[in-house]
């Protein structure tokens, strides 16, 4: 069957331009078709323990104070060998602040939807970008590694700060110091996480799901916000707004909302794409017919 198919193909010997158009069409449709990937979420253990085998605790500090977003330190329990970017995505899904936005070059553009537009743009004061730091050693070290390939190990402290600078190691580190006290004490037994004492916070629990952008402020009132979420203030360095959040929230409701919204807008786009594809194929057939007609 295959042989007869190739034989007919050879016999027909379609004009090259037509084949290119068809190839482009197939490429486009298949490429876009692959595109929808489901987000998978593993069940998170509590950062206060106990940890399952193969799990590590990592603290992720995000300092968006320059964007008016405050700064937060989040302790997360993740599988060993998680990458820096997976950690960021995990934080976004657990806090319900959405996944980070990346540019086509792979540059991290936005965390928690901040900034809403732009990506590493250059202006008079230098580059505005999310600088990556590592604080495992006890002080912030400017990281020139790729968060996508950087593997984390137990006790790592990762930091991101939105800075305006030259883009080299001199750019300022996050304002929350990378101290060990960011990790809550490990509990050997099995107390449920919600029974952890909640200290009065110094400020508003800024790490709570206050979704930026268009999704509005419905999230904090949703059932997701009721789930275990403990804010405790930590005296950490010079920072003003510090909140450590231990979260194992299941933000199922919000995720479902987001996905339904995205499919709704996608149908319109698919219709548009289909219209253009029909237009292109009509043109391809017409062009093929024209070359056939004018060929001597």
């Amino acid at each position, binding site marked *: 069957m295959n042989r007869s198919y190739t034989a007919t193909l050879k016999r027909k010997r379609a004009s090259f331009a037509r084949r290119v158009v068809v190839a482009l069409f197939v490429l486009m449709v298949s490429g876009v078709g692959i595109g929808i990937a489901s987000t998978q979420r593993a069940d998170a253990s509590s950062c206060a323990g106990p940890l399952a085998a193969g799990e590590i605790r990592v603290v992720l500090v995000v300092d968006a104070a320059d964007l008016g977003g405050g700064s937060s330190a989040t302790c997360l329990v993740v599988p060993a060998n998680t990458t820096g*970017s997976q950690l960021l995505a995990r934080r976004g899904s657990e806090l319900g602040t959405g996944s980070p936005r990346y540019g*086509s070059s792979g540059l991290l553009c936005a965390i928690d939807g901040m900034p809403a537009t732009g990506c590493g743009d250059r202006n008079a004061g230098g580059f505005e970008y999310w600088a990556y730091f590592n604080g495992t050693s006890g002080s912030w070290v400017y990281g020139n590694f790729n968060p996508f390939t950087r593997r984390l190990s137990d006790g790592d402290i990762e930091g991101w700060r939105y800075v305006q600078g030259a883009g080299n190691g001199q750019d300022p580190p996050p304002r929350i110091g990378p101290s060990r006290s960011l990790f809550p004490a490990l509990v050997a037994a099995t107390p449920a996480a919600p029974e952890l004492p909640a200290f009065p916070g110094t400020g508003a629990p800024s790490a709570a799901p206050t979704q930026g952008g268009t999704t509005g402020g419905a999230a904090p009132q949703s059932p997701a916000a009721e789930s275990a979420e403990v804010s405790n203030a930590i005296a950490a360095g010079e920072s003003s707004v510090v909140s450590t959040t231990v979260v194992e929230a299941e933000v199922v409701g919000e995720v479902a909302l987001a996905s339904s919204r995205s499919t709704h807008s996608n149908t319109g*786009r698919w219709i548009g*794409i289909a219209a253009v594809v029909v237009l292109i194929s009509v043109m391809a057939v017409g062009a093929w017919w024209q070359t056939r007609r004018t060929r001597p």
Partner: protein
Amino acid sequence: MTPRLLHPGAWWIWAVALAACALRTTNPVLLCLIIAVAGWVVVSRRADVPWSRSFASFLRLGLIVIAVRLVFQILFGVRVPGTTLFSIPEVTLPGWAAGVSIGGPVTIESLMAALYQGLRLAAVLACFGAATSLCSPYRMLRALPSVLYEAGVAVTVAFTFAPQAIVASRQVREARRLRGRADRGVRAWSASALPVLEGALDRAVALAASMDSRGYGRRGETPVMVRRRSVGLVLVGLVALAVGSYGLLDPGSPALFRIPALVLGIAALIGALLSGGATNSRTRYRPDPWVAPEWSVSIAGIVALLSFVVVGRMGDALTPSTNPLEVPAVPVIAVLGLVIAMLPAWLAPTPPSLLSATSPMAVAA
């Protein structure tokens, strides 16, 4: 409309505007539409001359570009987070090579970004191929403003190299076929690549030399100092024009490289014109007219470019996100602009040979 060849400048303006549209977007839907529009106009209005078959070669080159871009992304590309398709062995590089990666996980997101960028370059190549196959390079040389005569050889080679390469490749292929060797496939292609390139450059340089020996670009009895000054001004002007037009077409370039560079280039060229032979009058043999069809073809291209500029101002539909991957939006205004860019297929007059091929009566009359 009487059959005639459109002014080559009009085709070039249309094609450059279409290429500028392609440079402004990474939207695969729009890029494919740009390629289709260019192909449609080429098929409708190309003359029956050797270089008019060059469009397919440019499409083939575009496919190679896309393939190379994908392979480079897989091997050396920046590792981008996302859904991993497969992984290739990773080489750990020392600290000073931070930012460079060899091997590692390959994600759909990175492949799609590479595909979009490759497709954009392929669309630009298709626009260039459309201009090459739609108008005669020799007529284009004739229509150039006299300022460029100072850079005579370079301009001649630049405008005739691509069509000469097409003619040379056809001849090399025929020669191989006559000798009983394969004229298709990778081996035939690699064996004929060098003679084709060499032959095309030889022809272009020979053309430039013969034009030079017939007085192309000569200024007669101008003093050496004046000639040097005008050559220098032309050089400065051309470089500034190149930088400025690139800056204007590429929305990501710094502002200094856009309008200021263009203005500087035009000023330098005008200076060269004034300092050189302002008294020098030239005649043209049967100049190509610039009338209604020329205006409509170039305006169609510019309208498409304007529609892309408008869409670019309105939102980010021209650059669909690849991380997270999203279904590219189809901006209606840009599609309408491209439909207008397709109108030259009817607005331009039919080339003479095409008409004679379709209706023998025209030849008889």
